[in-house]
């Protein structure tokens, strides 16, 4: 296993005693450092199967732990705790409680597909990250991430009209996540755009708010997609052993 990726010793497991004398020898401070052992007893043996049942997770069983995914990962370069190889390992060995320690960052995968490009076993780690983030939400370990809220808002618009209108996606996303639309940097962007085209910008925003772009003859396609998505949701909940709420 590529241990250079991360420190295997957690700071909270490093123990020292400020005042300690053993057999007459003063071992106070770092002289008494020891590492508390970790014991994992609560395996979830179904974990790999559960993640494998969600879209993107299908090929997790192919992984042979080479670490190419983590090595090439865009987000890992920004945050070393973001470690696809390690999570795949935890999932395959059923170490759910260890996986849950990182539950709040797994959704941050940016889908750049560098891992999928590098993977020699066609695990599609990008898909595994999405399946894992989805699993965390379905199981109630995390609330819906901002990314999921964005994806759902986007998809709802496509199902409804066949197209999206960016301004509407952004407005609804900010409302749903409780963020103000008038953030300093967004206002600054609008100002810079308005400098060269005050009229067109105003017109664009005004018109888009009234007329939603839509695809002609979309109704039947939208309904068929909606039906399919609903059916798949039921299917995923069943695979994860979650009680049907409907």
């Amino acid at each position, binding site marked *: 296993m590529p241990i250079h990726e991360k420190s295997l010793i957690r700071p909270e497991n490093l123990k020292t005693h400020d005042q300690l004398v053993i057999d007459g020898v003063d071992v106070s401070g770092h002289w008494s450092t020891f590492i508390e052992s970790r014991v994992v007893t609560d395996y979830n043996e179904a974990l790999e199967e559960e993640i494998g049942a969600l879209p993107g997770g299908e090929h997790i069983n192919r992984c042979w732990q080479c670490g190419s995914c983590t090595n090439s990962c865009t987000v890992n370069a920004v945050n070393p705790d973001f470690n696809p190889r390690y999570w795949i390992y935890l999932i395959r060995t059923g170490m759910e409680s260890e996986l849950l320690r990182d539950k709040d960052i797994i959704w941050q995968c940016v*889908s750049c597909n560098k891992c999928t490009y590098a993977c020699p076993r066609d695990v599609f780690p990008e898909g595994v990250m999405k399946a894992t983030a989805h699993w965390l939400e379905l199981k109630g370990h995390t609330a819906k991430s901002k*990314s999921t809220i964005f994806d759902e808002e986007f998809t709802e618009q496509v199902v409804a009209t066949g197209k999206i209108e960016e301004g509407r996606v952004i407005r609804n996303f900010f409302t749903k996540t409780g963020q103000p639309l008038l953030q300093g940097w967004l206002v600054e962007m609008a100002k810079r755009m308005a400098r060269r085209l005050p009229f067109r910008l105003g017109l664009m925003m005004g018109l888009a708010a009234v007329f939603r772009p839509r695809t002609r003859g979309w109704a039947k396609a939208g*309904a068929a997609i909606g039906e399919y998505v609903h059916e798949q949701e039921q299917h995923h909940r069943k695979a994860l052993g979650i009680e049907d709420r409907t």
Partner: protein
Amino acid sequence: MKPEYQRVAYYPGCALEGTGHAYNRSTKAVGSALGLQLDEVKDWNCCGAMEVKNVDPKVQTYLSSRVMSIAANEMKAKVVMAPCNGCYHNLKKAEHDLAHDAASRETVERISKKAGHQTYQAGSLETIHALDWIKDGIGEEELKRRLKNSLKGLKVANYYGCMYTRPRHIFPEKDQGLGSESTSQPHFMDDLLAAAGAENVDFPLKTACCGGAHVLSDSDTSTKLVLNILRAAEAAGADVIATECPTCHSGLEMHQVRAEKVLGVKTAVRMLYFTQLLGVALGVSPRKLGVHENVSDGLDLLKEKGLA
């Protein structure tokens, strides 16, 4: 040269009707300056971008297949061109999945039937990017003959992003040796802009990620990733980053402003669509290329270089 690229079905996609409007304008302007024809796909829908696949990947495959079905079956087109990396990627991905995965075929067939249109059959259409369209429809030699202004003296970092080259398996025509595009060192944009006289700088982050998928949902990460790209371009001596994707382009623009406002880090490099740069070289006015619609002020730079 590929004669079948002279007239192609055109799939602009949602972004090119919104934030990427300047890319739409400049693509059309370059096409007409070069005598290449575009027939917009009738009643097209969103390809699913980077979002729908996270709700369900097969729905994304269906969305792209509907666009391809209209182009192939109703318009009888052989080639569809998408300038947006997201659209291009999704059409390619759908093509691959429909050719190789029975479950995808089944789902697409089921939804297509209910939607009341012909199911798209893999292999009936070739999907290309705007780069392929110009590179293989016109070529560098012909482009050179039609130049009105040389981009001489303009230092360009060519930025291709993620979706144009990754994952490799959905682009079977790439990495096929001489004349084909490379997935690790893409060069089509470099080739075209070099033919237009620009000086391409040695830019190491051609296929780095701008964090476009989380441009708003994880802005801090996106700002860091964009800053890497902007700083690397500046360090390489670039005046401008040439882009070929509306999501990358607006991501770079937005997070350049955000880095300035939130982190206090100012960068001076500009962003222009590669079609805007080619258009200028072909003598099209910057206004017709939508340069004034960009947030990043390319007009000043073009004036400074005597190109506008």
